[in-house]
């Protein structure tokens, strides 16, 4: 009897990671470019960065800005999307605006926003907020639009007012779709977090990355990229756990699980 490798939880993604590292190691050996140090050198650099208090503070600042931007985006984008999904007037007003802003790279707005808000936390948090708001409001809109009319009628027959229906029927019914937006938003938050720090260099993970680059410490550059990747993976896993806990009732519409193969 052969044991199927894919049946062991966590093994296939682990193998893929090792495969990538091996490929990297070989490529570094073959090409011998200064800008591409072997994988093991980047890995050796990890403990140094992770035990450096200043680096840790930088990472925490990044996470804090990202969280603030993310939570603000949730608070604004979910109600907006739900209102758009249930009111044609609201949708007609906001949808063209959102569709125009969605494809604009938010980091491209950084220089302008810095003119208004300086180089501190505010402009970085604002671009993260913008980046996250769009996918979440779009998916909340789609989710609210897809709510079955008869589910709302059933609530209306119980004496529930339209305003309460939005909170107590449309919101839970749209939650699976909202989570699709949250997941996309998280990825965008991470990207805008790093790029905003690349433009307004003062603190954060992006700052460590580009400082190392300036000093030609390529192993540290790659180690930082690994840290950012691990951060994204961990946050995504957390959102996925939250999702499966909050909406266990939903039909599996989108099977997106990353950490669970």
């Amino acid at each position, binding site marked *: 009897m052969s044991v199927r490798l894919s049946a062991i939880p966590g093994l296939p993604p682990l193998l893929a990671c090792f495969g990538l590292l091996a490929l990297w190691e070989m490529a570094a050996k073959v090409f011998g470019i200064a800008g591409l140090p072997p994988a093991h050198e980047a890995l050796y650099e990890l403990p140094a960065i992770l035990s450096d208090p200043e680096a840790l503070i930088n990472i925490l600042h990044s996470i804090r800005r990202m969280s603030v931007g993310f939570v603000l985006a949730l608070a604004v984008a979910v109600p907006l999307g739900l209102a758009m999904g249930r009111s044609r007037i609201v949708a007609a007003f906001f949808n063209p605006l959102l569709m125009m802003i969605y494809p604009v790279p938010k980091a491209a707005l950084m220089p302008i926003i810095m003119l208004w808000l300086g180089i501190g936390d505010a402009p970085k948090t604002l671009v993260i907020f913008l980046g996250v708001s769009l996918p979440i409001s779009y998916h909340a809109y789609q989710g609210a639009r897809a709510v*079955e009319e*008869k*589910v709302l*009628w*059933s*609530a*209306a*027959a*119980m*004496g*529930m007012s339209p305003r309460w229906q939005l909170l107590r*029927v449309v919101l*839970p*019914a749209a*939650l699976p779709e909202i989570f699709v937006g949250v997941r996309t938003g998280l990825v965008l938050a991470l990207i805008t977090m790093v790029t905003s720090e690349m433009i307004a260099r003062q603190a954060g993970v992006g700052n460590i990355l580009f400082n190392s680059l300036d000093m030609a410490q390529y192993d540290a550059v790659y180690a930082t990229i690994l840290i950012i990747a691990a951060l994204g993976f961990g946050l995504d896993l957390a959102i996925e756990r939250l999702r499966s806990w909050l*909406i*266990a*009732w*939903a*039909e599996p519409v989108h099977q997106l699980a990353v950490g669970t193969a």
Partner: protein
Amino acid sequence: MATMIAIDGLSKAFAAAHTATERPALSDISLQIAEGEFVSIVGPSGCGKSTLLYMVGGFVAPSRGAVSVAGKPVTGPGPDRGPVFQEFALFPWKTVLGNVMYGLLQQGVNKPEAEAKARALISLVRLTGYERFYPKELSGGMKQRVAIARTLAYGPSILLMDEPFGALDAHTRTGLQNELLEIWERDRKTVLFVTHSVEEAVFLSDRVVVLTASPGRVKATIDIDLPRPRRRAELLVDRRYQTLMIRIEHLMDSPQVQP
């Protein structure tokens, strides 16, 4: 008996896509339904029979005419009229118990009382043991049982049933028809029941209203004077049942009366 639902000159037209014209769906329906009466509406698909029920429910506004319930004009949905839809329309994020309790909590009933009442109704629709299941884990027949219990829970005096068994297989369908009659015999609520099955309408109803094809008008109203409680097997050999079935099938078949 007192009139429970009075439908007076009710018409509905929908805006037709891509044109400035309106497509009439229902035309000049007048109908009186007595308290405790079980009335079915049958007619070819597209005759607007569901739209008629939605207007009684207050979910859709009429283009002309009016509906009044217990003497009061209908202006919107209300807990005196409980709908049951073909699509079940359960709250998917709530368990069976949560769905059945929902209307009670909405009415301000306290939680222990709502739960006790919901459990009794779940047992009435034969779903004891499924209280903690989510709708996605249930079959179509079970979902519709939950929907019926959820509507009965908040005590509407009228049930508005929109092809409730239309999405179910034949076996489940006849089972639920029997259960519905058993439940109905207990307190004889007023029921307005929309179906495209003549057999179902005759088996369940006191009166069957036949509508014409689009736009729907009342073609005939037939009293179903078959004794209750009704047994399907007995009805099949009953002369009166056969006569009624043949008569209504003829009405459904005959060429449409054009306006």
